């Protein structure tokens, strides 16, 4: 049966009826068992919808995504642990990789920096500023995690890591100082973002290695 109130039951469930209508509907519900039953079923539908669980696709779609974003590296996470390195080896490799690529970037930037100085458009500048602030926050969070977990690493490893942090922090400070003198310099901005990204990456790797020691 479908009476004049049936079509308003969903709005009632969602609390969207005006108070006068709500009172009238509640008076109707007191006398209509069929509407009461329908109302209960609608409530169950809503509860069922909220309880639906997310399911991953049956096939792994990452390979297709990686191909389209131009990433040659499709890494099977399950196969990442095939090789075995010691913790100091892993950390040394991370530091070397990160610092070496950072130096290359710095040299490339320095050679280009003198050639062109292009003021960054306001919109891009704002995006970069927001991005830098976000990275600052992420670095602070990861640094906190490192401070908590560094006792899991041996003292000499921690010392090496801290030396690497000092090197990167110095590069960040230099980039910031240079930017104060020339805030619109696109290359300096890129260099700062890149150096911060390297610190982020190093922290992430070191934290992962420390966490695996537990």
């Amino acid at each position, binding site marked *: 049966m479908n009476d004049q109130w049936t079509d308003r039951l969903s709005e009632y469930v969602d609390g969207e009826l005006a108070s006068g209508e709500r009172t009238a509907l509640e008076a109707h519900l007191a006398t209509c068992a069929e509407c009461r039953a329908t109302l209960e079923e609608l409530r169950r539908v809503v509860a069922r919808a909220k309880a639906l669980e997310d399911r991953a696709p049956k096939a792994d779609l990452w390979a297709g*995504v990686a191909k389209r974003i131009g990433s040659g590296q499709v890494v099977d996470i399950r196969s990442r642990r095939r090789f075995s390195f010691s913790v100091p080896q892993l950390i040394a490799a991370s530091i070397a990789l990160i610092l070496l690529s950072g130096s290359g970037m710095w040299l490339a930037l320095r050679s280009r920096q003198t050639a062109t100085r292009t003021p960054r458009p306001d919109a891009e500048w704002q995006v970069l500023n927001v991005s830098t602030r976000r990275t600052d*926050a992420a670095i602070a969070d990861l640094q906190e995690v490192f401070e908590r977990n560094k006792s899991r690493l041996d003292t000499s490893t921690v010392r090496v890591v801290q030396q690497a942090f000092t090197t990167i922090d110095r590069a960040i400070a230099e980039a910031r100082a240079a930017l104060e003198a020339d805030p619109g310099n696109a290359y300096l901005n890129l260099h700062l973002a890149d150096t911060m*990204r390297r610190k*982020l990456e190093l922290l992430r790797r070191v934290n992962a290695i420390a966490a695996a020691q537990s």
Partner: protein
Amino acid sequence: MRDQVIEDTLPADSIAADVALAASGDASAFERLYRTHVARVHSLVRRMLDADEADDLTQDVFVRAWEKLSTFRGESAFATWLHRLAVNVVLGRRKTLGVERGRFHGGEDPLEGVSGRRETPEMSMDFEDALARLPDGARQVFVLHDVEGYRHEEIARMLGVVPGTSKSQLHHARMALRRYLDR
């Protein structure tokens, strides 16, 4: 909202770090983000459109996310940003398909005549299967409102209808689905 659940299950610094790394071109960081969020995105797409399109559209969502990561400003959770992007991709696909035409005027019982409909619990249709058989308009409104938690005003803007149509479609969808609850 559901997105908060994802953010709560992983350390915020882990997601923030991966977002920052991916935005600077690190595909490995983006792969981690993909693996964290793919079930969420795929489920949304599968429920909004046909299941056989869900894989392709899910890939489209992540490719679009990769391209637009530099515009993510961290004002909302990454999961919320990605989710909204997924909804936009789905709605864009819906327009391409032209499914909006005539689909917002379902009958009294959109599932009437669906084969496999039974009254006994052991033979009852799976709720998600029943959802997939709703007319497109009713299905999308139901998913956006009851599953994803959007309000009628937001849904109306997304779908280009008036809020009254959204409410009416939601009611039709619920009335049809109530027969397919687990008994």
